[in-house]
């Protein structure tokens, strides 16, 4: 009988008991959280480096009646930038971000001048290119209501844009042939409040932001001989997003946003033809999270707008790695 008991006990050896256990998150797991599951600021000591690549064309705009129309005259324009960025979590609730874009803008075209009475035809070209460092952007994010067991948070973000980019046209060879500026020529600051709620595999956000531009001076037209004082109109934006996991490592974000630009002042006065424009956009990101490596493809589609607001889609690629 004793032998039978020993043998019976021996049979228990290969059996592994699975009990209810709580998964312990280690730092490497935290660095692999996706855009849906990660908290709204980086964890303390985490460093995220990456770049954003943005590309758009200048083909259409929304007119004063809100109709999407083509740019009237001949020409081809593109606006692109490559923006390296660094993000660092100072505490679990406080994060800093530094971004500096390399801007590459292009406008090209041709025009023909016929003067039959003088038996003359003139072919002219438009070549306006702007390449170089743009304005430095710094941001500070703080979780006012930290993300706890409720998985909801309220985060304030303060941006400060420093005009490190060239503000004036250079290498002026003619009214249509010069190097365009890569910077705005003024300081600006933005306050943004974002509420976020995670209900795995989904997350929801709602945000509101206000951007104030300080006055500056620059050459507005290449034919100007001196700088003109200006003050860009304030910018207001608000939006909401719904984000979800398509599988464990691919997430899809959907953001609907509204942006309004106020009228720009020239020499402390608002010109008669100044317009305050607005646009409603939809931005979707497909985000691949491969361990600490993140690649996102995004497209911003302008759905509606008015008063010369841009109407072309914008393409964005984001590559990031969390250390």
């Amino acid at each position: 009988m004793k032998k039978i008991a020993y043998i019976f006990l021996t049979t228990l050896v290969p059996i592994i008991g699975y009990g209810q256990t709580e998964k312990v998150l280690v730092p490497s797991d935290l660095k692999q959280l996706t855009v849906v599951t990660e908290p709204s600021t980086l964890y303390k000591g985490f460093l995220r480096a990456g770049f954003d690549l943005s590309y758009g064309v200048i083909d259409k705009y929304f007119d004063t009646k809100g109709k999407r129309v083509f740019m009237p005259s001949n020409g081809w324009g593109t606006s692109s930038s490559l923006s390296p960025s660094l993000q660092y979590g100072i505490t679990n609730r406080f994060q800093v971000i530094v971004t500096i874009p390399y801007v590459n803008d292009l406008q090209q075209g041709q025009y023909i001048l016929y003067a039959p009475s003088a038996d003359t035809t003139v072919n002219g070209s438009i070549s306006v290119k702007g390449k170089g460092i743009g304005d430095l952007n710094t941001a500070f994010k703080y979780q006012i209501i930290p993300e706890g067991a409720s998985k909801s948070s309220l985060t304030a973000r303060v941006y400060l844009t420093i005009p490190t980019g060239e503000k004036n046209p250079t290498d002026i060879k003619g009214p249509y042939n010069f190097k365009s500026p890569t910077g705005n020529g003024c300081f600006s600051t933005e306050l943004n409040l974002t509420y976020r709620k995670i209900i795995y595999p989904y997350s929801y956000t709602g945000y509101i932001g206000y951007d104030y531009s300080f006055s500056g001076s620059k050459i507005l037209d290449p034919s100007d001989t001196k700088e003109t004082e200006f003050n860009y109109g304030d910018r207001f934006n608000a939006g909401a997003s719904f984000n979800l996991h398509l599988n464990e490592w691919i997430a899809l974000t959907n953001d609907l946003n509204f942006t309004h630009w106020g009228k720009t002042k020239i020499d402390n006065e608002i010109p008669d033809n100044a317009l305050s424009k607005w646009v409603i956009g939809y931005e979707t990101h497909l985000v691949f999270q491969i361990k600490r490596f993140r690649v996102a493809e995004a497209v911003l589609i302008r759905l509606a707008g008015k008063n010369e607001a841009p109407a072309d889609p914008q393409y964005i690629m984001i590559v990031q790695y969390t250390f």
Partner: protein
Amino acid sequence: MKQKILIAFIISALLIPFTRIYGQQDKPARDKFTLLTMPYNQRQLLLYRGQLQVNAGYRLAVKGKSYDSEGEKISLKAEGTASIMHTYLMELKYGITDFIEIGADSYFLKNGIRSPSATYLSGSNVISTNSLNEYKGMGDITLSAALRLPMDYKIFDFSLRGGITLPVAAYKPSQPTHTITEYTTPNNYTVNYHFNNNNGNGVPLYFISGAAKVSLTKISLEARGGYRFPAREGESIRWSWTLYGSTFTYYSNPYSYLPDRSLFMNGSVHYQAAGWFDLFLTGYYKNTSSGWTEYYDIKYANPETSLFTLEPGFELQISPSLTIYQYAGFQITGKNTDAPFYLLTTISFNMFPFWK
């Protein structure tokens, strides 16, 4: 004796969990999940029986260059006539059996092509002109049926496809919407010519194509070739106009045409990096010829065009029913044709609607 039997029984019982029994096996399991998650290198050329596939794609094309009749590159950007083409693609396919597939596809396309602006100076007259050719609308619907070799796919597959493109989309250009702007005096204004074109062919087109595929473990090779030709000549209209004051009056004139015949071939190399990820590089060649267009009762041959494109891309399975395809198109060489760089993203939704 009893004890020995008991010990032997218990030892046998302990060994069972570590033993895999290989018996006579039937064909691999044919369940929905297996078929929906079949990697490219193990997948036949056509859909499986009962499989429904819905594809929705978006192609962003930047027409920044073209090739002339000698194959020399022309920069459309420098001319200011470069343009953006947005194409929304739709496709529906169904596998009737493992060897027969039917499908339908169409697209919606938007493109605005500018011409160089011109200014006419004559005495005190200063008249500027801008010109825009806009293409906007649905394309025709193509119906197709395909057959493949009636055997399970292991290494080699071959299929034939044929079909018709039905001229259901609008094809005659709509009335232009020219405008006058910056009007200061009767002798000083800007004319904005705006031509509104549609994307239909106006006549049926037939096509026949073939495809072959070979898979060698993780590497697969695929080749396709096809020929498309019109069923008959078509008739369309051209718009002319007169300007009186700032009012345009439009007139249409008919003309006949024959769409080009087109030959297309592509070959691709695929690497199945993981069960859910396939990388590929495709070389695509297209040639059009034999079409003509009538101008003032004389038929002029359309220039023969050719274009060779390299298309790297990937297929990524997100879930059993959802797959994403992305391609980028780089034009390498060509003649008499625009050469748009493009990015194409397609989401493919797959299901077996009648299989419980």
